[in-house]
């Protein structure tokens, strides 16, 4: 059992990035060829990154202050100031429901799905009998694309032809409108989203647990700690890097939630999500590029803001 997976941030880890800026100390000089290779190896990814991530991001921000139907050249883009944002928060009906649903999604993932995933990982780490089977079974939904999960959800939840209502009918329960009732469908969809999220978190966390030094557990046992105490007082703090990854992934997964809602009813009627609103505005014939970009910018701020704050804080603590 090697511990290379979750080596808790040793001073060598950040040093990897520093290697690109070698200090001209002693004989450690780079040849001209080395410099070219370095420049290329750093330059190409940097270019791709800037071109595919930052340029479009900034373009989105700029476009969010414009009105454009996507037809014709850039000369047909009209600047409208903060009009898009004003309409968004005042007249656009699905905006506030979408914010609310994204937050509910985040809450369910944070408080229910992710803890369950961690719990399963801890159980499976005990090497119980059939652990491989359980791993496979729990991880299976992660392999399925969300589009397929959406399809499965409809097979289960369709009012007239779904499995759930079919079973309920057998015990004499009137059909429930799982997908059409706007106070019910978000929760029904979240069950399926969580099904996948649990497996995702589980596999991440399991990999981390496998990397925890077994002597830590033994030491805790010797000191008379219970299983629960061992996990919360010893294992969980040691797993800090994985915890950060899981947290970031949970936030990202819940804010970019799209496929399930879109496949089920294209984000209408109780399944409004910011990502779906972006898409609905940008695709189609008379698309509203500027308006959709404004929603995208809000989603960006919501998604990136907390993550940046959290990461800078943790990284600062670690380097201290």
């Amino acid at each position, binding site marked *: 059992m090697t511990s290379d997976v979750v080596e808790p941030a040793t001073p060598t880890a950040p040093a990897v990035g520093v290697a690109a800026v070698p200090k001209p100390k002693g004989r450690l000089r780079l040849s001209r060829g080395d410099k070219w290779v370095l420049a290329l190896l750093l330059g190409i990814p940097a270019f791709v990154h800037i071109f595919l991530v930052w340029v479009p991001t900034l373009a*989105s921000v700029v476009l969010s202050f414009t009105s454009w139907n996507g037809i014709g050249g850039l000369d047909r883009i009209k600047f409208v100031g903060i009009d898009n944002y004003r309409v968004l928060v005042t*007249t656009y009906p699905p905006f506030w429901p979408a914010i609310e649903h994204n937050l509910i999604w985040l809450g369910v993932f944070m408080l229910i799905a992710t803890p369950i995933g961690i719990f399963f990982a801890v159980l499976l780490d005990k090497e119980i009998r059939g652990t491989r089977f359980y791993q496979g079974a729990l991880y299976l939904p992660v392999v399925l694309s969300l589009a397929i999960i959406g399809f499965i959800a409809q097979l289960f939840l369709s009012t007239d032809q779904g499995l759930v209502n079919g079973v309920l009918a057998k015990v004499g329960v009137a059909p429930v409108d799982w997908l059409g009732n706007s106070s019910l469908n978000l929760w029904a969809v979240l069950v399926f989203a969580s099904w996948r999220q649990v497996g995702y978190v589980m596999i991440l966390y399991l990999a981390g647990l496998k990397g925890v030094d077994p002597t830590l557990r033994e030491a805790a046992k010797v000191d008379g700690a219970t299983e629960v105490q061992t996990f919360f007082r010893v294992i969980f703090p040691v797993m800090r890097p994985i915890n950060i990854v899981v947290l970031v992934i949970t936030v990202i997964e819940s804010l970019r939630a799209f496929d399930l809602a*879109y496949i089920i009813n294209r984000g209408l009627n109780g399944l409004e999500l910011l990502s779906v609103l972006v898409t609905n505005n940008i695709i189609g014939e008379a698309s509203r*590029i500027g308006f959709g970009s404004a929603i995208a910018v809000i989603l960006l701020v919501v998604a990136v803001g907390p993550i940046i704050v959290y990461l800078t804080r943790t990284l600062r603590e670690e380097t201290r």
Partner: protein
Amino acid sequence: MTDPIDPRGRSMRTLAGLATVALLVVACSSSTTSSAPSAAAPSAAAPSAAASEAAPSAAASAALGATTIRSNEHEKVPAASVKAMVDYCTTKTGVTAPVAITNHNDFQDQFNSFMQGTPEDIVKWFTGERLRFPARNGLLTAIDDLWPSIAANYTDGMTKAAQGDDGKQYAVPIVSYPWVVLYRKSFFQEKGYTVPKTWDEFVTLAKKIQADGLIPLAFADKDGWPAMGTFDILNMRMNGYQFHADLLAGKQKWTDPKVQAVFAKWAELLPYTQPDPLGRTWQEGAQAWANNKAAMYFLGTFASQQVPAENLADVDFFPFPTLGTQYDSELGIDAPVDAWILSKAPKNLPAAEAMLGCFATPEAQLAFLGEDHSQIPASKVTDTSSFTPQQSKMAEIIGASGGVAQFLDRDTRSDFAGAQGMQALLQDFIKNPSQDLAAYTAKIQGVYDSLPPQ
């Protein structure tokens, strides 16, 4: 053809990374396709392609060479229809045309960028506002020089539906179908129901059906668009075709009390329709009707696609009952039209126009329909011997109407009709029909007014 008029569809598309969305839209022009290069250079000697109807000799038309076609019909039956039509016209005109195919719903989502890229010469599309919008934005070529040779094939209404704002012709309509109340003859006979002509007769019948433990009218709106048909028919029958057209064109206000009256009437209708419509697709609604759980279904005649083949002859339909208004005799109706359009820079104009000229003939449209009897040709048909009784009835119903609309999402701007507009707003009403209609219609008008000028 699962969603013949679904404006956006449920087709899956992953959200390209949030940050790249803008770039995609800016940069993505269109998919390159298997368009064969035209065999012959555009023949300048044949500017008038008007001769297509008269089946020109192969020698004369061989000079026209080839054109290219993009179809949005990817499913088996409609794809075969397109092929049958193109094959027929290739033998008639000598013009060859490879047909490239895109998924129906994907194509609607990509239409803008596709038409700005390097589209095929001839593209399958719709009429109404969804035609006028690309025409207004310079994405199409007018076919005014071709039109005189095919004008006789079309009614005035059809000619108008194929026009842009500038009064030029931009499309060759090929098929159409009406929105009607469908029922099964044998079931009505068995239960002793009679076809209602007026609203009162309809309510009486609906109560009787409910007393029999059945649903009078199947209803489904998970897809967002089917409910538009109900709004259309009620508005046209209560306020007339012209008001309806003006409303959808933005010349009338949604806050008009006349519109509130439409929703009030709809609230009267809802108790007779299938409950929980927002969780049901139109296919599921059609199946409830086909399986006699619901006695009737108000939808386009394509609903009969969900009926098993052996029962197709049992399907019958009637126009929505009259409501006792001054517009009863007008009999306004939704009858969406599919059409071919000419992209903005066709590579071989004479060949494309020859092809389009042929598409405008009833013979080509009958070839298109083949075994599909859920639609009728858009042209005037003199020889209706190949029609099924249903097709004759469709033609009769559309012909009897004094105001033929397309459909809400084809008649009004698509950013208003779409998921972020009327689809969501109508679902809002269906969820809560007893809400304050003044506030509700003000909300609709607010959404309309927030849209940028086109």
